[in-house]
């Protein structure tokens, strides 16, 4: 019988303690971010999708070696290059120039292997994260075009 009443008492006490905690929480400030209206700046190391880095002339640094393409576990990078002859030090030299850099972001798992494997520092992570679309084509990025748009 004593156990019966002490159970009721202890139980009620624990309930009141819980209510006290939520009561205190009620008066604490709000901690959430009003997402579409407020956004957070991503940290410096945030891994978004990749972007090409431009050199001083605004051309991509990429030499189209294909390391990123091979390193990618998901096969979402497609490189294309054309050979052009350019004059270097007065000599005509054949050089591969990047003609196409497509990222299929639908497959990308943001692992960062491409950036890590790039020996020329030619790609970086963007800080974009509100990428949402109902159209699959919106995630096939033409990085060369994006680079040009950024340069403008």
């Amino acid at each position: 019988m004593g156990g019966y009443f002490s159970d009721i008492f202890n139980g009620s006490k624990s309930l009141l303690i819980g209510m006290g905690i939520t009561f205190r929480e009620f008066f604490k400030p709000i901690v959430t971010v009003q997402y579409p209206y407020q956004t957070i700046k991503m940290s410096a190391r945030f891994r978004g999708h990749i972007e090409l880095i431009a050199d001083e002339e605004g051309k991509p640094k990429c030499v189209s070696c294909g390391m990123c393409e091979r390193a990618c576990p998901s096969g979402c990078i497609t490189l294309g290059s054309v050979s052009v002859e350019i004059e270097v030090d007065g000599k005509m030299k054949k050089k591969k120039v990047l003609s196409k850099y497509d990222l299929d972001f639908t497959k990308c798992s943001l692992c960062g292997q491409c950036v890590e494997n790039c020996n020329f520092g030619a790609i970086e992570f963007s800080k974009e994260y509100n990428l949402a679309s109902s159209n699959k084509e919106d995630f096939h990025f033409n990085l060369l075009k994006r680079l040009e748009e950024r340069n403008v």
Partner: protein
Amino acid sequence: MSLTVLNVIVAVVIAIGFAALNAAYLVWAERRGAARIQRRPGPNINGPFGLLQPPLDGIKLMTKQIMIPGGADKILFMVAPVLAMAPAILSFVTIPFSETIVAHNMDIGLLMIFAFASMGALAVLFAGWGSRNKYSVMASVRAVSQNVSYEIPMLITAITVVMITGSMDLKVITNAQAGGFWHWNIFPSLHSPLMPLSFILFFICSLAETNRAPFDLGEAESELVAGFHTEYGSMGFGLFFMGEYANIVIGASLTTILFLGGWDCPFGLFPGVWWFLLKIYLLIATFIWIRWTFPRTTIYGLLNLSWKILIPLSLFNLLLTAGLLKVF
């Protein structure tokens, strides 16, 4: 008879409006309150403080297609939400908001509220059965057994108050407590020293009767998906929702009238409808506060609480009060 019928019709119309408004804005208050407890803002986009959220939600519900699951008992399925809503609204008819604001005061008002409240269980049962969904059926059986077993201690506790006052007229009960908070039934008196206990009993029972957390076994969303209204969408769901909140208002009103002196001012001055509203909304805030604090009980824990704790305690209280009334 005569004039009261007209009165009642007008009152029902007003009650529907009041219930709908209450349901809408209690949802808003609940969402805001829960959000504050959880340290987020809650609905705040539509209108100032999100005040336009409830009507917009209502419009959304009303414009949705009514879906009836295949194999469901169509008639029961359609009737159940109405049945859940109607008694709650009818109960408003006899609740005295103040000395003058009452649609139709009855000398058995308390009994009437209990009578109508008992219909709610049947609505849940029909809803669950009509949906032809196993989750719904299980939930409705749970909700009904819960309602039935909590009706008993609730009635017994109410009878204790009735014995002290000597009337089932809600107005008379309120008037008996007039003149300052020390006259309220919540405080122990010569005849019933256990009154605070019966207040707590009554409060717990009204939580359980309105299917509120931590007693929301009928719509235990993590076990039974959404309980008896799993299959309801659009206004069917809306009616259940309104019925639930109307029941909360009635539960709070009844608690206020029986224990907190109704429209009486705590200091015996300026009694009026504002005191009544203040009291019921404070009680409702406590309902909300409790809901967002505790986890849900189990069905057997719930029934044990009723049969092993609440009913013996309320019976003991009843006997004690009866004895003391006889002695003094």
